[in-house]
């Protein structure tokens, strides 16, 4: 189903706001991961504000969809989206990564309302999502979907492929993986660090139904999620093509922006760009 123009504009406006707030907080705390947070912005926004069933008033509602940020370092953007959705006050963002905060450097399910799984060590999140999908089926909860948001760097970990084999074997069609395919990891581009070859062919060979879309186009994201949800008998993955550091020209595609603090000068340039002043 196509998004209405109003809905599309609303989601895009949210993404713009989230990016501005993200840079604001990451600059102020001088720690955290801007690159992968900016690339995953539309994916999280499309899920939480259009496609996924979640209830901030009842975060543990049994029939909710489960959204797991297996690339846990993009926590700042996840927190910003959760806060906007109403899981906790937006004000709390300024405590990110600080002592006594509920907002840990990587998502912690015990601390933060709305966080489904504690993630951070890369590669093992998809396994847990397979388990969630199996658990929902065993519990007779048929209409809940598990969304696993992966980074492309974490595809280097062998456990991802172990999880794929299991998802295919156990036919977890209530599992939709979404790859934040920004092609850049901490030490360099994916092609430099560990070329993954034809990622679509790999997932397909492992038993997934594979979709691709522009990961910064909320309309495409939403319609691709609809297609993935219609798949029966096997898991799906959406290869969402994204740009690391999306929205800030000097960060885009640059691996140094995986986790670098933002200087005052860079902050001014970034904010001007995000606000559309230049």
């Amino acid at each position, binding site marked *: 189903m196509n998004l209405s123009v109003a809905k599309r504009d609303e989601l895009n406006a949210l993404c713009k706001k989230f990016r501005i707030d993200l840079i604001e907080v990451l600059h102020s705390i001088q720690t955290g991961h801007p690159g992968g947070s900016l690339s995953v912005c539309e994916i999280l926004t499309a899920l939480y504000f259009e496609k996924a069933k979640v209830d901030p008033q009842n975060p543990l509602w049994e029939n909710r969809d*489960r959204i797991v940020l297996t690339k846990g370092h993009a926590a700042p953007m996840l927190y910003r989206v959760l806060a906007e959705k109403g899981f906790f006050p937006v004000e709390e963002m300024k405590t990110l990564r600080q002592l006594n905060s509920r907002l840990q450097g990587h998502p*912690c*399910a*015990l601390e933060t309302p709305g966080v*489904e*799984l*504690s*993630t*951070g*060590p890369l590669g*093992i*999140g*998809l*396994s*847990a*999502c*397979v*388990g*969630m*999908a*199996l*658990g*929902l089926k*065993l*519990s007779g*909860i048929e209409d809940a979907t598990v969304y696993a948001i992966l980074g492309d760097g974490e595809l280097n970990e062998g*456990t991802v492929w*172990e*999880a794929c*084999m*299991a998802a295919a074997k*156990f036919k977890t069609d209530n599992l939709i993986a979404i790859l934040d395919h920004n092609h850049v990891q901490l030490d360099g581009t994916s092609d430099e660090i560990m070329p993954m070859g034809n990622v679509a062919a790999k997932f397909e060979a492992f038993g997934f139904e594979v979709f691709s879309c522009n990961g910064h186009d909320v309309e495409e994201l939403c319609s691709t999620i609809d297609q993935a949800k219609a798949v029966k008998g096997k898991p799906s993955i959406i290869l969402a093509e994204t740009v690391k550091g999306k929205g800030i020209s000097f960060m885009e595609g640059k691996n140094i922006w995986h986790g670098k603090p933002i200087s005052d000068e860079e902050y001014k340039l970034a904010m001007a760009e995000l606000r559309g002043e230049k």
Partner: protein
Amino acid sequence: MGKAIRDVYGEALVKYGRENKNVVVLDADVCSSTKSGLFAAAIPERFFNVGIAEADMVGIAAGLATTGKIPFVNTFAVFLASIGLIGARAFGSYSKLNVKFMGAYGGISDAYDGPSHHSLEDIAIMRALPNFQVFVAADEYQTDWLVKNAIEVDAPMYIRLSRDATPTVYSADTKFETGKGMILREGKDATIIACGVMVGQAVAAAEELAKKGIEVRVVDMFSIKPIDRELILESAAKTGAIVTAEEHNIIGGLGGAVAEVLSAGGANAVQEFIGLQDLHAECGSYNELLTKYGLDVPAVIAAVEKAIARK
């Protein structure tokens, strides 16, 4: 000798798994060895064989736990405490997810397969994980209780099981409690604190020592974490000599845990450590290995006499 621990374990999984529909069982292609295959045959819809993928198995179990299931993950102890460790840490320890790590073939009980399959560091590793409870099964009745208890208690747990039969020291109506050591024999001259197969060896050693007029208290410290601090300190005060006996490296296991309690508690007692002396064993028959590596009755007797002489 009682029944083989692994057989008792598999039967207990089926028995208690039938009673509690939330129990789910996972294995990494060794279900005929771990005996989780008994559960697979009885309740196939709640059994998942994930193939030779231990880290994946633990991750899947964690996901199942988030939906209220009580997952038992099964493979050899050595692989759970190594390849399974990333998930044990992130999802069990850090996230407190209710996953039961069942370490089959603990210690050197996978005798003929050799050191690649022996586990002599698992207790040290798993007890270092915050929030984890750690147990070592000594006999068939305790094994049965450990399975039942694991289903009842909402906490990540590591339970070390032996491949083999061990001497029976309990009966069907013995009551166990987490964090409470079992006093199997009283004595004033020394205390042997043992776990697993060494419990039977300790009881036999104490009987031999009694013939020489040496009275030894024997404690089965099956609950390594939480550990029975009071009993350890009381034993130190009462007997002045502690011998820890375990089928594990002498570094970091039961001996280390007891030494931590003695040290922090300011106990005035000597301690002797029975275990693998910071080395890897070799392959051979289980009994031959126990003898060669100082885990038999004569070795326990010698350690007790040495400890008493050091008082």
